[in-house]
């Protein structure tokens, strides 16, 4: 990139920052221009502004990877933890102080690779936290190795003869694990991303947003163009209260459906903890 366009990107960021003094921190995002993560950051800004969550009550927990830097870019407390471990860290945060709004941000390697053992347990416990998984089907921060969501046959530095294992589908997993709010978004659709992140944070219980967030630098197979050509909104007559149907729809790869797959209200983990504690307080 030449110096002119670099300056333009910086200027653009400065402008955006000036318009969002309530949520934007001092630090500027470190992502590559065009990265899908900007859209999710925008969505988070919108949600936090709209819900008027003061910085003291917001905790962002992230893992390692490009998405790990989110907590540095938004006004609030942040815990940039270890690779794969943001969910259990957030579990401790939320149980220890249920008044906080807790949002976990992580990538595909973080959430269904190294940290794949934690996701089911947060979902089944229905702890009232929000988990946004930014899926670019590649390890970006280590410069382009296959991830657990990479397609079969994808070549990379660590799969020179093509990826052999079939990809995991985070949306399907969340549904199977018992998450009570499951949505899939695409970073090209700014307003829809913002809208679903807002709904996810407002949801009482474990909410999951699977964002398709193409890596513009290292993934030559899954790009804005390729994703754009395969996605479509969930049908108009789709209802969000049937888990089995949701799982079926989520497995479709042609087309890939976007939108709110499933939502149900059941008692949250923290509500039940509160009730047990109250029973002793009397």
């Amino acid at each position, binding site marked *: 990139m030449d110096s002119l366009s670099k300056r333009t990107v910086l200027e653009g960021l400065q402008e955006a920052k000036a318009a969002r003094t309530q949520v934007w921190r001092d*630090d500027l995002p470190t992502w590559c221009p065009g990265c899908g993560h900007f859209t999710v950051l925008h969505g988070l800004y919108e949600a936090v502004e709209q819900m008027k969550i003061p910085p*003291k009550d917001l905790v*962002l927990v992230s893992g390692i990877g490009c998405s790990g830097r989110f907590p540095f870019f938004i006004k609030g407390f942040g815990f940039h933890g270890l690779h794969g*471990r943001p969910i*259990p860290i957030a*579990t*401790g945060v939320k*149980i*220890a102080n249920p008044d906080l709004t807790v949002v976990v941000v992580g990538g595909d390697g973080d959430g269904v690779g190294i940290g794949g053992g*934690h996701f089911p347990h947060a979902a089944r416990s229905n702890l009232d936290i929000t988990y946004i998984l930014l899926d670019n089907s590649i390890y970006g921060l280590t410069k382009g190795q296959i991830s657990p969501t990479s397609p079969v046959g994808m070549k990379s530095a660590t799969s020179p003869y093509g990826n052999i294992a079939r990809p995991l589908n985070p949306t399907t997993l969340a549904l199977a694990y018992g998450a009570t709010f499951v949505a899939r978004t695409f970073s090209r659709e700014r307003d829809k991303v913002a809208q679903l992140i807002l709904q996810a944070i407002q949801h009482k219980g474990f909410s999951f947003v699977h964002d398709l967030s193409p890596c513009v630098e290292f993934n030559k197979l899954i790009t804005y163009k390729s994703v754009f050509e395969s996605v479509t909104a969930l049908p108009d007559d789709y209802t969000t209260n049937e888990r089995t149907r949701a799982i079926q729809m989520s497995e479709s790869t042609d087309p890939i459906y976007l939108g709110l797959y499933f939502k149900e209200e059941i008692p949250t983990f923290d509500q039940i903890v509160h009730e047990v504690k109250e029973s002793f307080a009397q």
Partner: protein
Amino acid sequence: MTSKKNELSIRFCGIAGDGIVTSGKILAGACAGIGLEVMVNDIYSAEIRGLGKSTTTVRFSTSKVYSMGDGIDLLIGMAAKESIAEVKDVKPGGGIIYDSSTPGDITEENSLAAHIPSEAHGYGIPLKWLANEASGTNRGRNLVAMGALCFLYSLPPDMFIHRIKTLFTRKGEKVLEANINAFQLGYQYCEEHFPLNHPFEVKEGLSPRQLISGNDALAKGAIECGLKFFAGYPITPATKIMEITAKELPKLEGWCIQAEDEIAAISAVLGASFVGKRAMTATAGPGLCLMSEMINLAVMAEIPAVIVDVQRGGPSTGLPTKVEQGDLNIALYGGAGDSPRVVMAPSTSEECYTGIQLAFDIAEKYQTPVIFLSDLFLGQRIETVFIQETIERDRCTRKKPSPDQLNNYLRYKITDDGVSPLIVPGEPGAFYTITGLEHTIRGTPNYESEVHTMMTAKRHRKFESMVVDLPRADILGDKDAEIGIASWGSTIGAILEGMAIAREEGVKSKLIKSIMIHPQHEDSFRAFFDSCKRVIVPEMNYQGQYAALLKSRYGIKPMEIHIPAVNPVSPLKIAEKILEANHGLSK
């Protein structure tokens, strides 16, 4: 047999269903009830299967019991075949109770009676027939044996009956009555058939003593000093701590979760501590391995946390139900980079109780992980203790920023003692992000050499400044002795008894013991080592992990005793080494 014994060690040996653990509880409870000092150690295999062998040894005395000692005075063989291996532990003049109601078709090879050595007394008692007479079933054989030992050592039967009532009243009148009958039949049978073995000297008027395990004491101490969050994963021999916190914390506005693995457990602990709660986990060696990366993060991001490791035999899954002190190295050094952490090791149940409270104070005040190394023998054994009711005192808390400091808040502000003022989520005025990346005083990731040098020094400076808050080492034994012993953890008990044995042989020794492994009051240790001509470092591991630390820290050349342990250390073995060291001196 005119002199009275003031110390007895009695072992029940059997298979599951023989009531081995219950027998230990009744005997220990009865002894504690009449004010004796008691220590109980259960040994069992890692398999749950119905026919697994288990033993309970109860050692009691009119004076302080520091260890399980050497040898036993009475073996009660509830299962003949399994008990044969225990015969070698019976002291000369000791007794062996075997079931004489066993049918005659048993082979000599499997007969306990056939294995009784000439220097021991054999007591054939029809345990099964008498149990049947009492209850109509084979259950209650252990109580028949209990009645027998009560007579043989002329212990007061009232206290046994009292304990039996305490344990069995909730099981209904019928069961209770059958058990008391079984006890009495055993007592009467012995009275009719055998002379007294050796009367035990019971002192009148002692107050009943409290019996507690190290794990119980530790959990109690943690809860009383404000523990509000516990996360763990079941692992022998630490699980009991989680079970207690699961029950008790919700009553005190806290909570305990059983996480999906040890990594999740320590992650949740750091999450809870991040928002200001006193948080802890408890595990054993394999769990500590899994937690290493997260403890490393706690060092880097300066998050208070207490990590208990109830050590068992290793490496790997190792010996889940056997004791060893093999985790000192991973506790001290198990992290990437320059990763200092506080390491503590209690040596008694009392120290589990008081020490864990100190662990929290250090963790909170100095924003650091503290690894608390208990061990299987210490955690699971039951002993009589003096635990004072909690004294209300000022607990160490996290340093708060002044209003000025809050205005321009710096999470990692450089200070003289290395400790930065801290606010937590939910508190207004400032916010920050913590990270495992190297960072500036504000918390922003930064990889410059000056920043890394400054922050590394800050993290280490805390260890220099915390020393003023740490207890000094205790020096026990003969202060003028030339032979000095340094050790840690539950091995201390056997050493104290070994020192007493050596002293009877005319060889004096002294011991330096500190609950603090790192950091230590180094001047105390230096002065101690300077005053010794020989230093002995006994510990339950092959590598001599504590000895290695002392050698590198103090430049000493100790005589090391490395015992890759399965059973608690023998006081006699320690005494032998003291005598050996003395022999070397006098040459």
